[in-house]
């Protein structure tokens, strides 16, 4: 059950070029900055990034875009990052835009073993193109399929050495759902505390979901 922490560099080496990678964060708040640094340092290439947004060119996921690590983005919003806009226009990266609530539920479905989600969001819009429209008791829904990834890179507040995670305020955002939806889950906590320090009721991501914890260099 106990997990020894690894370095951000060792974690970044696991994330192979071309992988599908979920990254927590909302405009960079709650993003795993040390893992992002390490991915840039190792010169990662061809990643598909799944997350809420691409933040700003010098912040969070935006730094991976700026460093040329990313081939494809699946996100709800890219309006704060002119680099993403430009690379998309130039055809240098692909972008799929997904409504924020739909993104959260598709990831949740992917991690919860569900075959998809029926949502009213996007009915009658470009988002509905190519999707099944289903009527339930007179209401119209889109069938949105589950999403999974090879890796989820999370930022947590505290972790214990069992991998249990807590989050703080608005830094939780997509991190808890992503913890369920990837084959390899790497969590970067602000602090790692001894097992038993985090009360069971405070744990928001059970440690069994976490593959690796990233420690701090001493």
């Amino acid at each position, binding site marked *: 059950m106990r997990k020894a922490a690894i370095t951000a560099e060792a974690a970044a080496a696991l994330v192979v070029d071309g992988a599908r990678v979920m990254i927590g964060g909302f405009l960079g*708040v709650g993003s795993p900055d040390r893992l992002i640094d390490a991915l840039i340092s190792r010169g990662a290439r061809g990643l598909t990034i799944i997350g809420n947004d691409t933040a700003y060119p010098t912040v969070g996921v935006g730094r991976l875009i700026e460093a040329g690590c990313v081939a494809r983005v699946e996100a709800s919003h890219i309006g704060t990052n002119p680099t993403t806009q430009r690379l998309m226009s130039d055809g240098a990266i692909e972008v799929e835009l997904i409504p924020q609530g739909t993104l959260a*539920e598709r990831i949740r479905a992917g991690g919860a073993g569900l075959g998809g989600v029926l949502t009213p*969001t996007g009915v009658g819009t470009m988002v509905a193109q190519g999707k099944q429209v289903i009527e339930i008791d007179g209401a119209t829904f889109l069938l949105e399929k589950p999403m999974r990834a090879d890796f989820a890179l999370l930022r947590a507040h505290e972790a214990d050495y069992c991998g249990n995670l807590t989050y703080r305020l608005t830094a939780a955002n997509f991190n808890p759902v992503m913890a369920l939806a990837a084959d390899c889950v790497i969590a970067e906590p602000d602090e790692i505390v001894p097992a038993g320090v985090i009360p069971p009721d405070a744990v928001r991501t059970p440690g069994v979901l976490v593959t690796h914890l990233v420690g701090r260099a001493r």
Partner: protein
Amino acid sequence: MDAKETIARRVAMELRDGMLVNLGIGLPTLVARFVPMGISVAFQTENGLIGFSAPPPEGMANRDLVDAGGGFIAALPGAASFDSATSFALIRGGHVGLAVLGALQVDASGRLASWIIPGKFTPGMGGAMDLVAGAKRVIVAMQHAAKGEPKLVETLTLPPTAARRVSLIVTELAVIEPTDDGLALRERAPGVSVSDILASTGARLIVPDDAPEMPLGCD
């Protein structure tokens, strides 16, 4: 009073005691400054918090506490934080009493466009599609025209944000309600005539015999 303040003050008159309210990024966030005396509302920020005020007191910002525009906020006593799935369950599930959103266009059927100008700018929808699909009431808060071009149009030329008809449109010139018969003029801004409104509106407006001046509250 500038255009944005007029819009924010008039939208604030739609707040009701006990409402859960979601304000979009930009102009809609100004509404929080004009909550009428004697009522209490809870503001939600879609990135995962109910119960905040902005900005935080000088020197009391926290890097993990921001609104949906990335600006620092203060969590009020009684605030609750949650993840994105819960936040959008609140939004889609009809728990939000009022959503206030900006728009690029609104058409005669009451649909709004707000997330893409094909070939020019593609910010993305963020949470807007979920908010329009799920909030009990949706108010569009926008300037009446942009660069001389009307934003109220007969039929959207930009991709819609939802199929749903919005509840109310508030601009610096007028309050307009989409109805089965089309866009109905409800109120004029102080000093603005019906012909001023018609001149900068690109959709047919149903004009009543007497459109009253909009209430803007007081400080």
